[in-house]
């Protein structure tokens, strides 16, 4: 079933090793570094220039802003899923808490919305770490169970939290928009929103990029390749995982805070299944553990979802089936397909006579 993607990522590093195949240790480093960097810079340049082309259409701009918000979240989530191997299912929870933190501080305490970004990021990070402390000591599957329970419990919790100003079932609305030097952001002019979103998206890209291509990221590759050897070098899975959970929560909370002010409403509906499954498809479609694939997945999913809008109820039916199909047929998503194509071309160019690339340095 997974022939395409499996062949594509089989390289010297994981040939014949049962645990290999998903984490970043399985690809030629220098090449992917170049591609990562190139794609990241290309993405940012395109996004920075795009308003010149579609700036007139508020509708398209809105879709792009939403894509960047979720693009940032999917990158942060993929740090956990694809790189750290932490099966966190509570990511939307961090997002909602970031949104609530910012909205509550600006509406109930009268804080300037810009500070809300910091508050949202802090809320996301703190909750992520608090959730991580008990769950990361457990085996991987327990993390998935516990974080899903956290995610499901959050919605009733925010509803009963009316006493502390969460607004109960209806949530908080309207929420004060941002202001710069006397200019207040409005829905009719998307350009300022767009560039703030782009700024935050770039923050996510940069943080994730450096988290992956640093000592930090190297320790995950080491843990993946040989856990006991990595530990003998003094790398603690628990500590490293906890740090990356904090980073991921921070970025997610940050995006949540922006989202609250952008949509001017935040309610427990953010925690609905629909949002969660969208996020799953973004990461899956882009490619788990294939930075910056998940961000690209976010753009595709948001625009695809808009395109499928007229199907209403059938849309989620389609998306549910899509998740199953991607997992079964192309588990490494679009970036995995790019990998396969690249590998195929290189193999053809190097020597057509060599039957396989196992054991050959690639």
């Amino acid at each position, binding site marked *: *079933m*997974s022939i395409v993607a499996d062949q594509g990522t089989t390289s010297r590093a994981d040939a014949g090793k*049962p*645990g*290999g*195949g*998903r984490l970043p240790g399985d690809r030629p480093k220098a090449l992917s570094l170049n591609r990562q960097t190139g794609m990241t810079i290309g993405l940012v340049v395109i996004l920075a220039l795009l308003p010149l082309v579609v700036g007139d259409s508020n509708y398209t701009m809105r879709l792009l802003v939403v894509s960047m918000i979720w693009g940032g979240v999917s990158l942060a989530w993929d740090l956990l*899923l694809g790189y750290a191997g932490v*099966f966190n299912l509570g990511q939307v929870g961090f997002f909602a808490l970031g949104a609530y933190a910012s909205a509550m501080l600006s509406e109930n305490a009268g804080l300037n919305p810009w500070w809300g970004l910091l508050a949202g990021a802090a809320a996301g990070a703190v909750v992520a770490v608090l959730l991580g402390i*008990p*769950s990361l*000591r*457990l*085996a*991987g*599957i*327990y993390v*998935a*169970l*516990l974080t*899903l*329970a*956290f995610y*499901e*419990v959050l919605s*009733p*919790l925010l*509803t*009963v939290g009316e006493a502390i100003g969460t607004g109960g079932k209806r949530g908080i609305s309207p929420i004060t928009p941002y202001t710069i030097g006397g200019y207040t952001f409005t829905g009719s002019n998307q350009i300022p929103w767009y560039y703030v979103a782009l700024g935050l998206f770039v923050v996510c890209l940069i943080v994730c990029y450096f988290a992956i291509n640093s000592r930090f990221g190297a320790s995950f590759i080491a843990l993946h390749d040989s856990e006991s050897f990595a530990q003998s070098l003094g790398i603690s899975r628990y500590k490293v995982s906890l740090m990356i959970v904090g980073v991921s929560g921070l970025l997610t909370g940050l995006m949540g805070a922006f989202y609250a002010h952008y949509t001017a409403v935040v309610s427990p509906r953010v925690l609905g*299944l629909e949002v969660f*499954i969208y996020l*799953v498809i973004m990461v*899956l479609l882009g490619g*788990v553990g294939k930075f910056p694939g998940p961000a690209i997945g976010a753009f595709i999913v948001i625009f695809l979802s808009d395109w499928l809008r007229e199907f209403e*109820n*059938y849309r*989620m*039916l389609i*998306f*549910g*089936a*899509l*998740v*199953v199909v*991607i*997992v*079964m047929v192309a*588990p490494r998503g679009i970036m995995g397909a790019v990998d396969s194509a690249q590998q195929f071309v290189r193999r053809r160019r190097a020597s057509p006579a060599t039957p396989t690339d196992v054991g050959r340095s690639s």
Partner: protein
Amino acid sequence: MRELVEVLITGFTIGIVYFLVAVGFTLCYGVGRVLNYSYGSFFTWGAYLAWVLAVGYAELNYFLVFLIVLPITFLMGVAVDRVIIRPLRSRPEFDFSVLLATLGLAVFLDNLVLVIFGARTKSLPEFLEGSVTLAGFTISWQLLAMFIFAAVVAVILFVFMAKTRTGMSMRAVAQDPIGARIVGIPLFRVFAITFGISTMLSGAGGILLAPRFFMTPLGGWTFLVKALIIVIAGGLGSIKGTLYAGFLLGILEALVGWQLGLLWVMPVWFLVLFLVLLIRPAGLFGAVARKG
């Protein structure tokens, strides 16, 4: 005082139904190493199929409803195992793939219900009306019927696991899949049967609890999470742990619902789970939290 006892009886009954639902989930993991996130959807499907037979398109009695719906949910489970789970088994990242595939399947199945039956809530009538007074305490027949049915299913399950050949194969696979295969147990068939039994138990839970809670297309998620919490609190893979945790949390639900309101049930459950895991990371009766 009297009210308290009645609340406790209700909690005890809900507890045994929760045990049934949760044990299917834990069985599926213990034997097949599958964490089935679409488990709640079979709960929903069980309830809606029962609605079709008992209210919507026919007015069969409950006995027949169970007789028809349970095999259907069993076959659905077997089909899912064949089509989705089995091809994923050769993957190195089996856990992760199954998690995502069953999540997608859950969304698909729930929205299929939504498309077919619409978003309006539905309800099943009670199995039996009226109530009985025993030693001064009033118990509704409905509750008693639920209790008896759930208890019967639980006993059948225990006997099945302990005495029949299939049940013994399942336990053998749970202990050591490779060893089981060496002695000639057909692994894939056992996996499929286990998956079918587990979805059947979920469907049975759906029918039993539908008269108590309203049915909605997305209602299964609550029960998936309830099953998750019970299973983790009891120790993943442990049937005994699931039994105690099911009763504990069922009674807690009745008490919390009585004193604070139903909205507080999930937060309190989560708090209990948190405390249990802080003291015993593998759950009340779990062995060691398995790696992988």
